[in-house]
């Protein structure tokens, strides 16, 4: 039973209200502001009811309700395309509502690049089921068997007499389907209707423009940061100045004179100030005198000693090696052996807009207005954190600054809820820049040892990967006992999360003797630390592929082979393991990238030039789940300044069936440039007390000046049977992040003959390496 369906029920009885109710549903935020969805409670939406997913109005428009959020990659537009296609409704007459916990089914929000790969399937099936039911209704209405009906753009016609027709809106508009669906879980949701063969889908494969963009460029979009409620107040946090510090006392008199001061709220080591106006809260947070006790021991080593510390640390979790053949004998019998070690520091999510949320405690409930990518997790987490019944909490997902995993641990949402309950007033929490950059969740640091062996013919016969990952106590998804306020208030888990999941190479090379293993290490301070790790876009792939694909180039150098030809030889090597045709598809993708680039076969490095700017090319490829990306970059390395400029990027990309090609291209571009930023600039720095990278000057990222002059994205479908009717749509949000760090490192080597094995490739590091090598 959902509130939304109560409304639908009413709308079926109350014809006058038909136009009003669906409009309120199409904009749940406006509806909530008007109290239109009722005062609660807010029970789960029943995914086994067709009405929970699809509403068709009398004017023959449809709205789809899905439990996902769109992080700016256009998934909302893609959902409309696949659902309009299966429903046979005109795309322009559809809309989509996403991620509002009491209005849309719980598909978990976003994460894992699974929007189309996983969640697209129940969406297609329920839309197909709605079409089936509507055709049955039309058959009765027109007294013609379903087999003799055709449907297009929401109009059902008799095939032999197209003048006899009825619209979906006339058949169902404003009334409930009342059709029960099947499925043990939401991903398995299905009706009786079969899916359309891909060849009959007309919106899939078209580049519809994103439906969210116009409001983002004319200023009309209402973001989560824009929510204003009567009686609201503004809160700012006061963080411990040293990681692991303990609160001793607060001098509240130090802020009593601040205009608009409302209250200081503290619990454990969590401290916030609340004021009537935003600038007042900022001033009060700066002015508040708090006495902190530093921890007895240093919370972490200084960042310049991070990798030394990680290599010496006792692992908190030992990985289980994934082995093929016998690595030791493979290495022992190799004609040539190569070893190298690679390092990637902590890198931040560093959202362009710091964490924020608004919580409204009216009616002994909580409504949280949030950009949380996992709004359902926030709802569940807040309910447990505040020990409230789950159906008294709802989360309205709204657009926000994206941080690619940051809001999976939505600290501000929990804090706003906590403060709203304390004060009994709507509270808006906004983190400041230094707070966000220092204290957001971090992508884990990696140190990776690689060993390899070549036989006398230069073929790869042994490959070893052994990683240490600083990922102990990896933060999960909005857990009530791991978000920062839970840690600071002492309401935390007894056992830290293991971390490091699956952080081994993904490439499909067939190596007869291979061992991949990853161990997890921790920093001395496990809780209440700004070096808490979370899921940063992928979340381990860019680090792993930096090592594994840099090392493939080092092996190719040892074999005096062209780097692409060397990889093709390893991909084509005989093996029976090829789940999802990933090896065949890898070969197709590597070939497509080389062809688009115009790759000529030669070993690296090229002959080092004599000018100030040295140019080179680099290749890397990676697999994520079922999606494959191969990238080639051209770099220019300035031997006077050490600056690396990536001038051109070519990416071949296979994510199976493509729903929106232009949307995909932009997603891939963004993913690659995000990784370019990580390759060239990004590193979290810290001393033995605190994080010292706290703003855009101390945590530099990619800028307009670094933007490549050309980017080509080649969409490949390397499926052995690309015309099959059940061609799957795989995920595309993160794969293209993976290869780029290695591609750039390989290009720097090609240009200069110097191998950089430590990320990021900032000017000073590159210049020092060039000088050491006398380039």
């Amino acid at each position: 039973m959902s509130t939304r369906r109560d409304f639908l029920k009413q709308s079926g009885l109350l014809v006058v209200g038909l136009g009003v109710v669906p409009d309120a549903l199409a904009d749940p935020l406006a509806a909530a502001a008007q109290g239109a969805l009722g005062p609660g409670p807010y029970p789960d939406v029943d995914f086994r009811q067709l009405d929970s997913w699809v509403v068709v109005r009398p004017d023959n428009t449809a709205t789809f309700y899905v439990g996902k959020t769109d992080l700016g990659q256009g998934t909302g537009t893609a959902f409309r395309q696949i659902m309009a296609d299966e429903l046979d409704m005109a795309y322009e007459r559809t809309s989509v509502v996403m991620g509002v916990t009491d209005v849309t089914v719980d598909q978990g929000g976003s994460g894992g690049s699974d929007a189309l790969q996983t969640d697209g399937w129940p969406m297609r099936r329920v839309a197909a089921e709605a079409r089936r039911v509507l055709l049955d209704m039309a058959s009765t209405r027109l007294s013609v068997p379903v087999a003799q009906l055709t449907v297009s753009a929401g109009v059902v016609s008799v095939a032999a007499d197209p003048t006899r027709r009825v619209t979906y809106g006339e058949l169902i508009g404003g009334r409930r389907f009342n059709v029960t669906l099947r499925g043990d879980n939401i991903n398995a949701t299905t009706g009786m209707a079969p899916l359309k063969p891909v060849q009959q889908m007309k919106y899939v494969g078209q580049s519809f423009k994103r439906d969210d963009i116009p409001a983002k460029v004319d200023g009309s979009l209402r973001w989560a940061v824009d929510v204003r409620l009567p009686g609201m107040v503004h809160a700012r946090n006061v963080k411990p100045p040293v990681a692991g510090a303990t609160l001793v006392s607060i001098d509240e008199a130090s802020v009593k004179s601040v205009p608009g001061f409302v209250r200081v709220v503290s619990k454990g080591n969590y401290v916030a100030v609340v004021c009537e106006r935003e600038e007042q809260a900022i001033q009060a947070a700066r002015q508040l005198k708090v006495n902190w006790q530093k921890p007895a021991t240093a919370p972490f080593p200084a960042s310049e000693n991070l990798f030394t510390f990680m290599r010496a640390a006792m692992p908190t979790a030992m990985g289980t090696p994934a082995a093929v053949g016998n690595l030791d004998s493979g290495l022992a019998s190799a004609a040539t052996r190569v070893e190298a070690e690679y390092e990637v520091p902590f890198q931040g999510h560093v959202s362009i807009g710091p964490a924020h949320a608004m919580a409204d405690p009216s009616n002994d409930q909580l409504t949280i207005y949030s950009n949380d990518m996992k709004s359902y997790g926030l709802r569940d987490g807040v309910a447990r954190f505040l020990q409230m019944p789950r159906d008294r909490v709802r989360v309205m997902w709204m657009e926000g600054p994206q941080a690619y995993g940051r809001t999976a641990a939505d600290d501000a949402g929990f804090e706003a809820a906590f403060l709203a309950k304390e004060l009994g007033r709507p509270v808006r929490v906004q983190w400041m820049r230094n707070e966000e950059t220092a204290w957001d969740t971090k992508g884990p640091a990696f140190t990776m040892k690689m060993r390899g062996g070549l036989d006398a013919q230069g073929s790869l016969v042994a490959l070893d990967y052994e990683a240490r990952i600083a990922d102990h106590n990896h933060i999960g998804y909005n857990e009530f006992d791991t978000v920062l306020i839970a840690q600071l208030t002492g309401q935390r888990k007894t056992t830290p999360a293991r971390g490091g999941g699956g952080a081994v190479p993904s490439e499909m090379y067939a190596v007869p003797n291979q061992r991949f293993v990853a161990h997890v290490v921790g920093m001395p301070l496990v809780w209440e630390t700004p070096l808490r790790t979370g899921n940063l876009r992928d979340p381990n792939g860019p680090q792993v592929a930096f090592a594994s694909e840099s090392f493939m180039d080092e092996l190719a150098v040892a074999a005096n082979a062209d780097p692409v030809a060397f990889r093709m030889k390893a991909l084509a090597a005989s093996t029976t393991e090829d789940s999802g045709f990933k090896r065949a598809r890898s070969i197709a993708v590597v070939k497509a990238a080389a062809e688009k680039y115009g790759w000529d076969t030669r070993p690296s490095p090229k002959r080092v030039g004599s000018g100030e700017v040295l140019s080179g090319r680099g290749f890397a490829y990676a697999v994520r789940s079922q999606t494959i990306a191969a990238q080639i970059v051209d770099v220019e390395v300035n031997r006077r300044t050490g600056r690396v400029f990536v001038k051109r990027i070519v990416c071949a990309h296979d994510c199976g069936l493509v729903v929106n090609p232009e949307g995909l291209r932009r997603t891939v571009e963004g993913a690659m440039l995000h990784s370019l930023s990580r390759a060239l600039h990004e590193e979290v720095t810290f001393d033995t007390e605190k994080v010292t990278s706290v703003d855009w000057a101390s945590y530099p990222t990619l800028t307009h000046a670094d933007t490549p002059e050309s980017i080509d994205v080649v969409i490949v479908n390397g499926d052995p049977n690309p015309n099959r009717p059940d061609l799957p749509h795989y995920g595309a949000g993160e794969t293209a992040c993976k290869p780029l760090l290695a591609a750039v490192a390989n290009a720097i080597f090609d240009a200069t003959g110097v191998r950089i094995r430590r990320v990021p490739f900032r000017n000073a590091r590159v210049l020092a390496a060039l000088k050491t090598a006398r380039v």
Partner: protein
Amino acid sequence: MSNFTLKVNGATHTVDVEPATPLLYVLRNDLGLQGPRFGCGLGQCGACTVIIAGQAVRSCVRAVSTVQGAEVTTLEGLSQGGTLHPLQQAWIEEQVPQCGFCQNGQIMTAKALLDRNPSPTDAQIRQGMAGTLCRCMTYYRIQAAIKRASKTITAQTDPTSEVLA
């Protein structure tokens, strides 16, 4: 608290705030505008950009007392009579934004750039935009959209030239 009179997007407003209040909070919280957004409060990222006297100004570090009487234009004020500015149109044509949070700063900074120099070179675009950050890394598309808008604007001002876009 003191009274300050502001002209924003052609309308006059009087607000009663502390003189040091950053313009950003007045625009957002007193006038209800949504274009300029808080990104850093340090003038580093550009998300809060507005245009004052032809200059792209970072409203998070500009005290309200210093802009009394000045004409302030925000993203909401760029369109004229319901017609989008060529930059906004180009942003849609090039499908620039991903999350879109920074795009206020990108568009407003580009507006000030094109007002000064309607036909910037690639290097001038890179340099002029370098301090305006995007975390979805849409820079490549932003630069394409600025070039597209530049063509539209120069064609509008020179009726003999053709729109190449």
